């Protein structure tokens, strides 16, 4: 097995509170204490660069099984690695749904075959994601599901959500929920506000999210269950989560970078690539989300990677599917939203992309502590580049960020000690 060292970089490992220039030693797929005795297979210079754990995505949608023309676990994990993401939790929005043990094991097997990075399947909370009956959560967990989620389909029935939180708690698993009252967003395309009025597009009011955030927090408090609110997007949601955490409720939350850099005004172009769920909000919501990141209320940033083929994004805006393909633009968009604006420093940002997601998912990756799996990335924090969706490794290019000039790029990626990606070798 490979023995190597990454020398002279600014090593940032929030999990072990490390931020200093130094070397990172990789031995036989794990982080070693170094210096290693004997010959090294490789030695990499990282001076002027940031060396940190590989990033962790908490909610990607890979379309396999079901719609593998749009994305597969192989193409999705290749996209992940190109974005510096070495662990991906994938939503069970597949056909068939990952609501049984065989389906979880299929995901793990396909990830094994692809061999690009770690894949952590999420199992469904309810059978076929219908929201009626609990899925076989215990067997999903035995098959390898790290958490439970019905993906973008909310568990509308409060009784089912209550029992789900209670039952998942027995297995030490968290429920990832997309909070949105379905009847308040029926026919909705974008945030309800000035721009939905101007454009005549169906509105998705902020309150549709906030009502279920409040309900879910109450149910988590009632049951002692563990709750993760997926990609919250409104000021009141942040406030409800902050107060619940203050009372000791086990609730975590994430945001996406696109909700930090785009507003609902973007829909004026009628570009379906700006159609996302939850919708892009107005400026005041963005400020509240950033405050939630700064004070630690929100501990995860995820790309919410959601591939949609061009022919479907070409449909009428109210018919086109929601989603942005995000794994390959996760880092630079975070840099723009949070580092360039001087709201966070690099260690704080990297925590939101590594140790935070690891804690929420309950996985062991995302740390450079000795003995941990050697998932390491090298970032050039100052490299300026232009986003070109046609060069994405994802099978889809549904991104509104084509042509954006951004800063910060992943230069090389190590998974289990093997160098699996480098920017200079990129074709």
């Amino acid at each position: 097995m490979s023995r190597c060292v990454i020398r002279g970089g600014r090593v940032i490992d929030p999990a072990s509170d490390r931020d200093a220039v130094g070397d990172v030693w990789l031995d036989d797929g794990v982080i070693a204490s170094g210096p290693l005795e004997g010959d090294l297979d490789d030695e990499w210079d990282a001076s002027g660069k940031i060396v940190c754990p590989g990033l962790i995505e908490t909610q990607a949608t890979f379309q396999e099984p079901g719609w593998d023309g749009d994305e597969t676990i192989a193409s999705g994990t290749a996209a992940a690695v190109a974005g510096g993401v070495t662990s991906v939790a994938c939503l069970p929005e597949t056909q068939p749904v990952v609501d049984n043990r065989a389906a979880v094991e299929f995901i793990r097997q396909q990830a094994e075959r692809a061999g690009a990075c770690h894949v952590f399947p999420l199992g469904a909370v309810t059978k076929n994601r219908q929201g009626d009956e609990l899925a076989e959560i215990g067997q999903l967990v035995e098959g390898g599901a790290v958490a439970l989620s019905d993906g973008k389909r909310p568990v509308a029935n409060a009784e089912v959500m209550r029992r789900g939180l209670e039952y998942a708690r027995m297995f030490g698993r968290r429920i990832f929920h997309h909070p949105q009252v379905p009847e308040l967003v029926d026919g909705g395309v974008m945030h309800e506000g000035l721009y939905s009025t101007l454009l005549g597009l169906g509105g998705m009011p902020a309150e549709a999210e906030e009502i279920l955030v409040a309900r879910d927090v109450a149910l988590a408090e009632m049951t002692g269950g563990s709750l993760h609110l997926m990609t919250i997007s409104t000021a009141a949601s942040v406030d409800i989560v902050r107060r619940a955490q203050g009372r000791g409720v086990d609730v975590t939350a994430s945001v996406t970078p696109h909700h930090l850099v785009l507003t609902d005004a973007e829909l004026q172009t009628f570009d379906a690539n700006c159609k996302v769920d939850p919708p892009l909000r107005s400026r005041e919501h963005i400020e509240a989300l950033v405050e939630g990141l700064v004070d630690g209320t929100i501990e995860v940033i995820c790309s919410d990677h959601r591939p949609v083929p061009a022919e479907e994004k070409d449909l009428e805006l109210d018919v086109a599917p929601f989603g942005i393909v995000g794994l390959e633009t996760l880092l630079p968009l975070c840099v723009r939203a949070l580092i360039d604006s001087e709201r966070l420093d690099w260690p704080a940002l990297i925590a939101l992309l590594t140790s935070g997601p690891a804690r929420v998912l309950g996985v062991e990756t995302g740390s450079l502590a000795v003995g941990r799996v050697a998932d390491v990335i090298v970032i050039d924090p100052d490299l300026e580049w232009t986003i070109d969706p046609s060069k994405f490794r994802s099978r889809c290019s549904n991104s509104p960020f084509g042509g954006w000039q951004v800063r910060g790029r992943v230069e090389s990626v190590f998974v289990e000690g093997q160098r699996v990606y480098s920017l200079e070798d990129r074709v």
Partner: protein
Amino acid sequence: MSTTSDDQPGAPDGPVWTGENLLGLEDLSAEEITAILDQAAEFKSSSLQSNQKLDLLDGVVVANLFFEPSTRTRTSFSLAAKRLSADTIDFTSSGSSLSKGETFIDTARNIEAMGASLVVVRHRSPGAPHQLARRIDAAVLNAGDGTHEHPTQALLDLFTIREKRGSFEGLTVTLVGDILHSRVARSNIWGLKKLGARVIVCGPSTLIPPRIEELGVEVAHRLDDVLGETDCVNLLRIQFERQRGAFFPSIREYTHFYGMNSERLKAARPDVMILAPGPINRGVELTQEVADGPHSVILDQVTNGLAVRMACLYLLHRCQVEGGRA
């Protein structure tokens, strides 16, 4: 193109409009709107009143793509094109791309490949003409996109008001009814505000979209409160087909508060103008005697619609020719 040339047939002097597409009145300035209205006035006298066919679009192919049922607007566009000697293709299909198996963009590109250089689009989805305009070279005319805009309807409303009143200064126009689902309301608001009118939107609170005041309009919920200060009432059709859920308890209650009847007409200004974009639901938005009475300009609107659509087709074509696009 920056000036109108004297040898241009049917081209009045004054302001000009040089758009590549007509997607909405939000995009146009007061001067550009005025240029279209002036051209329409010219066509009304030179062609419609004397029943003369003009040859300004001879050899040009105009495609009418109606992805949503329409009789009035489709007929009006088709006749406007024929009055200008264009060849027309009418394509009608209801339902979204998904139900047809071909995207609406592909449909339009096929029609464009048959030689159409002016494409009139009606679609149930807001923004569909904008999406199309990015994908085809032909000029796109929005003939109504969902609940977003309906620029030619607003232009004909503006034309009708201007024809009767001369100017918009000091004029109060009240748009009544389902503002939330009305593309006619949105286009009218843009046009009327740009030309200097005062605009009141009046309807049940469930049918007034959020933050509409930021467009510079006043909001009222009782027609009787604002009728006395209104010069022009535009009675929007209740969009039964666009409403999801219950926005008001019953037609009877709607008519009770917002229906224009003889009683209300007595409380209105003596010279009040009654407009309605049609098709009207007689007995709902207005009664028979109001629709057919002396204050109604509903049929003038239909005639003027023809003149306005001739103007839009012609001006877009002229822009293509002078811009080297055709």
